[in-house]
């Protein structure tokens, strides 16, 4: 009798067998997997490349650098891709479209390796950095180029539009240290 009483008040027996739902295949549209910095001077074309096709985690990123020629004024173009999706997505266009919310910063160590200058502008007349010029040093030298892309920086803060990251703020979307060699 007591056992019956025990089970009796269980009125609603909705025991839906919960099945685990299939996850969607990994497809991170937000990701930038590849950064290609192309230096061009006529027929002299050099690349600094960062590639991490499977995103963070998994295989480590592969960074390749070409040595640059001394005493040359290169035209620099940065291309960004998401190679984890098919077809490959060119993120460069998105950064261009939201140019006022993005800025690249080039920091060299030692500072006399080269001189970078911005060669593009956003809708407010401030630099983005997808296009720039790079004037390499006269003599052989080696060091690092720290390339940073900031999202929503304060371009009006002191020296930011001149290329100084100190007061820029915003969020770091890209930060890569490339070997920078001038031969």
């Amino acid at each position, binding site marked *: 009798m007591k056992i019956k*009483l*025990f*089970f009796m*008040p*269980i*009125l*609603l*027996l*909705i*025991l*839906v067998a*919960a*099945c*685990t*739902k*299939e*996850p*969607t*295949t*990994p*497809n*991170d*549209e*937000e990701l*930038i*997997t590849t*950064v290609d910095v192309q230096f061009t001077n006529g027929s002299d074309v050099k690349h600094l490349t*960062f590639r*991490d096709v*499977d*995103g*963070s*985690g*998994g295989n*480590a*990123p592969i960074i390749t650098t070409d040595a640059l020629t001394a005493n040359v004024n290169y035209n620099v173009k940065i291309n960004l891709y998401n190679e984890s999706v098919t077809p490959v997505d060119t*993120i460069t266009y*998105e*950064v261009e479209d*939201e140019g006022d919310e993005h800025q690249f910063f080039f920091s060299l160590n030692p500072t006399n390796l080269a001189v970078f200058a911005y060669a593009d502008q956003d809708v407010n007349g401030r630099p983005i950095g997808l296009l720039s010029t790079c004037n390499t040093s006269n003599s052989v030298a080696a060091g690092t180029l720290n390339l940073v892309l900031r*999202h*929503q920086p*304060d371009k009006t803060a002191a020296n930011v539009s001149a290329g100084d990251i100190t007061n820029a*703020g*915003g*969020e*770091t*979307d*890209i*930060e*890569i240290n490339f070997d920078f060699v001038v031969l």
Partner: protein
Amino acid sequence: MSVLKKIVLFLLFGMIHFLGEAQNCNYTIKGVILDEHDKSPLEFASVLITETKQFVYCNELGLFELSNVCPGDYHLQINHLNCETVIVPLQVVKDTNLVLSLEHHAQLLQTITINKDKNNTSYSTVNVALSQESMDKKLGNSLSGMLGEIAGVRSIQTGSAIGSPIIHGMWGNRVMMVQNGVPMQSQQWGVEHAPEIDLFSADKISVIKGAYALQYGTRAMGGVVQIENQAIRTDHHIHGYGSYVFNSNGLGNTLALNVEQSNKRNSFAWRAQGTYTKAGDLKTPQYFLRNTGKEEKAFLVQMNANKGKHHLTVLNKFYTGTFGILRGSHIGSVTDLQDAFQRSTPFYTEDNFSYGIIHPKQKVLHNLLNVNHQYFLNKGKLESSYSFQFNKRQEFDVRRSSEKPSLFLNLLAQNLQSQFTHKSAKWNYSVGMQYENKFNFNDADLNVLPLIPNYSIHVASAYFLNTVKLGKTHLDIGARYEFEHLQAKYYKGQSLQIDNKRFNNAAFSVGMLFDTKKEVQWRNNLSLVKRAPEINELYSDGLHHGAAAIEQGNKNLASEMLVSVNSVFTYQKHERISIEINPYYQYFINYINLQASGQYALTIRGAFPIYEYKSFKAQIYGLDVSMHAHVHKQIDWIFRAALVRGKNLKDKETIAFMPADYFSNQLQYKTLINKKNDLLNFSIKTTNVFKQTRQAPNDFVLSPNGYFLLGAQIDGKIPLGKHTIKWSIEATNILNKSYRDYLNRWRYFADDMGANLILRTKYIF
């Protein structure tokens, strides 16, 4: 009709009417007013018939008599200095005798526990409840704010609006939130995931400190926070309340309305409640915290039906909230985090205030549907319930190419439970069975890799609790067993993984309550709890933006085992002083925690430290102290303090997020406005939080300095006929001090809240 005839008729009617009334207006209401707990008489309590204003005091034996009462429908108001006002509906058709019990010591025992909760079958655990009275004085506070009134309960915060309670050094997966008897299923593993609860719809919050895993689940290792509603008033008139709360810091407004009614036979009752809150940017003493506004909406509907020994309740609680996340706390990399800490003002700070909520933000929703049946027996009851919960959590980052959330989790949970309780003079026991299933899935359209996988969990449990009274001692014993099946589905690279896991969880508890003298109690409890690793501990995989870290789960983790010892000394001298001292020691065999692996992963945003879920031997121990002294007829002094220490015994390191030492003092002064016992309370509170010198390793920044806060409050009651208005004005951080708290994750980016003036009114009808 002539004027004379009219006058005669009028007088005749008048006389009959008058005689008619006078004939029957000599009924008497007699009675005695007792203390709810020990049935001692409450001398000088007062009884008022609200409708006729007839009023009398009880004598020293608690006896009262109201005479010359006319027949009618009345509301009797019973008042006593230290009790909650009780309103008793009464229909007088003859002489009436009443025996009434009041919840005495309502103020005195605010933070102290004498565990005589009717529904509790354990005497050896620490159970602290915040009464309706104390909650009314803190209306509008977040859960952390409310729980801050209880010694030893702290909160891990992500700003002021988002917080998770910490009990005895444990939070998240080790503390269980229970709403109306149903364990809350949500994404509680996340440090930025606050429980999705509307406190305006709750009438009572209680905290059970220490392992009380037996009844609710092995997840309740650190304790249980119970959110409950009181019974619907057994009165066939519509009653309820309307509340309004204003916070000057954030210009927050809240409106809440509650209505409830029973039918005359008391066989049916209903309640409906709704709350709306809107607040904007909070302010530190120096600047606005950009994008820290919030909007919350909630409603509750409840229906009760009684027939004989059966009692059925159907309850639906809905809550939704949108919370702004401090714009300046949204970082992209480790460099950003280090830069942020160097700044005196967070990036993106604006000079002006705004109610607007932009990205980054959180949007959460929780719905609880509960059907509960109770069958009352001679010495106990049989209680069964079915509940369905739906939890939806979206977290929006600042994304480059879309407005979609970066985290979008849906959780559906069902719970079916049945419990049989038996109570007699010497022996109480509870036996129960539960079946739970949980079903979690990431929204398909995210376009970002999910942090935790899709999974389903089934748990079947059984438990028993037992209390025996032997002379002046109560002995508790209890055990619980859970069988858990987990299935997780996730992608590793491009291949789909399906993992099945089984866990056997258990809990065992034994305790004793010694009632040595009338004033002294000593409680001891030993608990063993084994809990299965949670989904984030097993399968986390991804970049945790706010923490600038990559977090990785470990799917080979074994269950965590805890041995916990709690000892509570209580000294209580009637109406003079109450002291509670609670030392505790918790030893873990496989404490699961996120640890820095020492390795870094290079990503396009730079290098991020990799944190992994590991397990190791650990201990967490501490001391909670509460004291309430009635130093003068009208003055009370309340003191609270807590210390916690947590250590990873394998690596000899401190565990992160252990609360720093603190103590608080409060002085309360009560005045009586007039003989109707309308109280006006003044109080001043000081809080001292020490610097957390036991720094967790791999913390990017040093812990902030200790700080001192000053607060004050005036509150009172205004009777309006049958109704009451409760009001309070509170000021927190009166000195407008700049400070950062170790447990607030925004301490990397910004100061905590500056001064705040709170206005509260509650109109009870």
